[in-house]
């Protein structure tokens, strides 16, 4: 056994630190929580305003525009129908609202950070280990601080999802910027491009496929977090999964699980189709 005398804990100081933070900045956290909740509810309200067949039509039209294949689009558009048929439509909309809210926030934070990381080596040195830690940390761990700062409910779910889904978009944006062929950059410089022009006219457009892959990955990560975040009281499809685990109701679990998968497939196909459209030189 590990000797008792060599033991020390960091749990206590961390608790004290977090408690201190919560007490001192309670007002600030409330303010942030209020803003996020408002953002989330606005999205939710917007999503609810669209009738169910509106989504099916939208998925069909977008898919048709991206893939130019009627059969493919028909299959993809028919999938959401099953979510409704299982009686999980409103829950799926709730989950979708959390996903959209956290992905939008992740992009607002992640894209500029990714550009910085791709441009400056020093930023990469600092950010890289942080991202590694974020990605290897079990997703459940994010729930604890999110819950402590923001209580139970939807806001901590958005926060936890945001943190969990942030790394891919940062990483792939930086990677895309660094993969731009040197010959093209050199030509742009030779014709008198400033640093900013080089980024805007050459690097960003050429990095677009990689950036879009990052956005796609971030969305998928957010989706997978939806189930986990139901443990701190976010409602939606995750809650349904959780309930069926507690009741050992396999059938109900499969229905909820399939709904999550359908959501994932539809979002994945649509964002990938968008990425293909934005690929340079086509």
């Amino acid at each position, binding site marked *: 056994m590990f000797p008792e005398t060599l033991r020390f804990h960091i749990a206590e100081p961390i608790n004290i630190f977090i408690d201190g933070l919560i007490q001192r900045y309670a007002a600030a956290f409330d303010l942030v929580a209020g803003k996020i909740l408002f953002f989330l509810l606005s999205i939710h309200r917007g999503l609810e305003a669209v009738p169910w067949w509106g989504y099916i039509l939208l998925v069909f039209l977008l898919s048709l525009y991206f893939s130019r294949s009627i059969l493919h689009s028909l299959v993809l558009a028919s999938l959401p129908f099953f979510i409704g048929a299982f009686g999980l439509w409103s829950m799926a909309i709730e989950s979708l609202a959390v996903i959209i809210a956290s992905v939008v926030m992740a992009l607002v934070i992640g894209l500029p950070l990714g550009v910085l990381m791709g441009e400056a080596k020093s930023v990469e040195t600092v950010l890289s280990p942080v991202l590694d830690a974020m990605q290897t940390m079990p997703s459940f761990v994010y729930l604890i601080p999110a819950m402590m700062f923001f209580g139970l409910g939807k806001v901590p779910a958005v926060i936890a999802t945001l943190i969990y889904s942030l790394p891919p978009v940062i990483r792939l944006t930086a990677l895309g910027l660094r993969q731009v062929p040197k010959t093209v950059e050199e030509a742009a410089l*030779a014709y008198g491009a400033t640093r900013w022009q080089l980024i805007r006219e*050459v690097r960003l457009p050429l990095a677009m496929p990689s950036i879009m892959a990052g956005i796609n990955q971030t969305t998928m990560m957010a989706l997978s977090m939806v189930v986990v975040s139901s443990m701190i009281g976010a409602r939606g499809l995750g809650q349904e999964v959780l309930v069926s685990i507690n009741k050992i109701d396999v059938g109900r679990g499969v229905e909820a699980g399939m709904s999550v998968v359908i959501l994932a497939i539809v979002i994945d196909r649509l964002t990938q189709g968008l990425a293909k459209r934005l690929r340079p030189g086509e």
Partner: protein
Amino acid sequence: MAGASPAEAIVVRNLWQVFPRKEGISISSADVMDEQRVREMDESDDTVVAMKDVCLTVYEGETFIIMGLSGSGKSTLIRCLLRLVEPTSGEVCILGHNVTAMGKRELVQFRREKISMVFQHYGLLPHRTVADNVAFGLKLRGEPEESRKEKVTWALETVGLTGWGKYYPSALSGGMRQRVGIARALVMDAPILLMDEPFSGLDPMIRRELQDELIHLQRDMRKTIFFVTHDLSEALRMGDRMAIMRRGEIVQVGSPDEVVANPADEYVARFVSDEKEQFERGRAFIGSGPGREATACVS
């Protein structure tokens, strides 16, 4: 070249370039002043001496060729002219402007107005159409769209790509892509044209065609062309004067005829021997029989 001597377009004085191969090594201009240190750096694996004390003068309106094998420092030299690579020490003056002393802003302005460059690997933007690629430099310079359009149409016509403006580079063959590269350079109407092995990646027929077209264009443009190549026949065809580089040093400068007739050392002699042989065979052929095409077959 008799009479009043032509104006100097590009003057390179004591240009050195030493690349560190390991991180954390920095080389200053003081290092290259010391002969002992230079010898050390030459032999060391941590540093690469790409250019050694290069001095050159290129006159306005001439086509000046830099020739050498790969790794002889010719690509480094042409990049130092507009500071795509920062020289370790030395001075570059172009049209009276001291390029090596310029600040960032000044350098950008200088690149936009005085110099345009054609690259071996084209360096085209894959996400822009041919027309937008040609207009790229003008756009950076901030020219209004109207005048851009007009100039692009003219440039595409000049390189024989009328009607190709709306295509993407990926749809074009190598030769056509390089035509786009040339159009992008011509459209800038800069007095100096830098060409870094522009035709090396093309197949012989196309290469020949583009060489001829460039010679033809140059007859009217009278730009100062700084042309890098490893192909002697290309140098002989295109050049008014040429310099031969070897391991970072200029070995010989002269007109193509002079270099072929009187190579300065064994390296140059070996370089030109094949060409000389063919040249003489061609001349003998013309002398003995009919058909002046013989010279055209030499390549």
